[in-house]
């Protein structure tokens, strides 16, 4: 059984300016010990999915579909059991560790908080456990009494990772864990995450906009565009042989140093991600797509098979209905 199973997830923010469908019809599974990478531009709905899994959105946000965390439907839980599932079932490594730590409380207390809130241990055992967690993420245990401002960015992110592991969750959601860190520290944090994930056999949902990072840490990658998954498959294949033109553009935006193919042509993608309230008809990517054909604005794209064990929502993939069929 997969640790996390998301079926037909729709998340709609309700604002004064009307409904904003941030996530539309997303389906995926994560098995124990596997890492699913979720990539896409800002505002494509990545973090919205992370919030939906633990139901962190405000009560006014409409969430439809099914989120099974270890077989339990998170969306159907009452407030009490929901609080119990938070952090013990799935924990989040928030983006920007700088702000996710309370500046007036010691980091040790904040890690221990996760343990004591769920009454997993007394204050004393929690402190010992916290010290162990700190050592586990490569920080000296004496840092337990430090305030967040006494730590560097990378150290704070390590604290966040320790916190995420505090209650032995079966799923860890890493929501852009390396943003705002410099490249060296980024690499260290990624390495730490990957080794912890292997060692503890965690299921992990890894969210980032940096495709090259995903290729390193994930087993599978899902690419999101305008609230939908547009391509999904094994990590290295999605990265190296993208099937969807959007993935091609995303991968091209991160040139590999030393790779002759990228020499002299740092490629980007023109245009802006679509306004979620005015998603283009047909394939939402068609206004920016370099290989769009006449049928794209009217074609209802779906995740079609794009070779063995991978799917993509593009008319050009092998599993798509043929162009003549689509135009009739």
């Amino acid at each position: 059984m997969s640790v996390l199973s998301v079926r037909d997830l729709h998340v709609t923010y309700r604002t004064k300016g009307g409904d904003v469908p941030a996530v539309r019809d997303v389906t995926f599974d994560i098995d124990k010990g596997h890492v699913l990478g979720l990539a896409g531009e800002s505002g494509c709905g990545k973090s919205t999915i992370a919030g939906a899994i633990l139901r962190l959105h405000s009560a006014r946000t409409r969430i439809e579909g099914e989120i099974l965390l270890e077989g339990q439907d998170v969306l159907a839980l009452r407030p009490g059991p929901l609080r119990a599932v938070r952090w013990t079932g799935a924990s989040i490594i928030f983006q920007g560790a700088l702000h996710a730590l309370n500046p007036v409380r010691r980091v040790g207390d904040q890690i221990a908080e996760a343990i004591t809130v769920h009454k997993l241990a007394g204050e004393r055992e929690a402190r010992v456990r916290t010290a162990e967690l700190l050592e586990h993420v490569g920080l000296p245990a004496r840092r337990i009494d430090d305030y967040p401002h006494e730590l560097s960015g990378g150290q704070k992110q390590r604290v966040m990772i320790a916190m995420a592991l505090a209650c032995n969750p079966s799923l860890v959601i890493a929501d852009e864990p390396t943003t705002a860190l410099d490249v060296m520290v980024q690499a260290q944090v990624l390495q730490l995450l990957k080794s912890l994930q292997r060692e503890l056999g965690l299921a992990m949902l890894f969210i980032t906009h940096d495709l090259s990072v995903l290729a390193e840490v994930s087993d599978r990658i899902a690419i999101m565009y305008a609230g939908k998954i547009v391509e999904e498959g094994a990590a290295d294949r999605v990265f190296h042989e993208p099937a969807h033109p959007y993935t091609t553009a995303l991968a091209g935006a991160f040139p590999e140093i030393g790779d002759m193919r990228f020499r002299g042509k740092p490629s980007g993608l023109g245009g802006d991600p679509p306004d979620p309230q005015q998603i283009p008809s047909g394939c939402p990517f068609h206004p920016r797509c370099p290989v769009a054909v006449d049928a794209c604005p009217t074609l209802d794209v779906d995740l079609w098979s794009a070779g063995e064990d991978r799917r993509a929502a593009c008319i050009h993939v092998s599993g798509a209905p043929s162009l003549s069929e689509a135009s009739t």
Partner: protein
Amino acid sequence: MSTIETPRQPSEFTVGVEADLPPAPRDPKKIRWARRRRAITGFWRVYRKNKMGMVGLVLLGVFVLVALAAPLMVSPDDLRPATAPGISFQPPSSEFPLGTDDFGRSVLDLVIYGSRISLLVGFAATVMTMVVGTAVGITGGYYGGRVDTVMNAFTNWFLVIPWIPLAIVLASILGRSLYNTILVIGLTSWAGTARLVRADTLSVKERPYVERARALGASSWHLVTRHILPNVMPVIFANTVLTVALSILAETTLALLGLGDPLSVSWGTVIFDAFDAGALSAGLWWWLIPPGVCICLVTLAFTMCGYALDEVLNPRIRER
């Protein structure tokens, strides 16, 4: 889930952890006390450098000491009109340094004893203001929506009530007593605090660490007491000190209007008696000025401490 899971690879990281922990006592209670002591010494080190704050604190210390020691310096018999030690309306002399009032009571004794009531009312009304104001402000700010609308309407209602007419009405309904004075001041001054706390709560509750704590499975109570309140505390604290000063002034005003407790001696009632007896036109300055100066000094001392606290506790103003 009832007990904590043992670490998965104990050999790798349990060794040395115990030794690596700070040498502080391992008992959480002792740890907390050690931390508090450290926090207080740290705070004191910064506060001591603030000249205004120190002047205010020393002044305040003198008044509080006098108020506490008043029964040792003045015998209550001397304050009773029937057993007053002197003759009426005597100017300052060696026996009565600040002269006597219409009953022949020493004005110095009155002022010394009056500090007790003035400070008591000031502190008690402030406690009431803070508790009610913080509760209402945090509840409204945290829950938002309809709760906030109701709390806000409630706050605004109290904010616009002119407090002196309300005090007059309450005093005539409930009678003139010390507790009613405290009640009236508390009732009319919590609204400002509630607004301040609500505004701060609104900004704190949107911070990422509050969302993190919610994701952690924390209850609303936990979020409010562990994350929001500590971050709103500096505002409340600095506000408290200023409120004490305002409450003392309010008590004086009420007493001056004849709404205070006629049986207890406070600075306000001394001034009221003096006015009543026509001290102003009779030129009995020694009766009017001392309590007035005391009120000014205490209010000034609290205000100085308040500003100093704000400077010390608010990192944005603090000079390093």
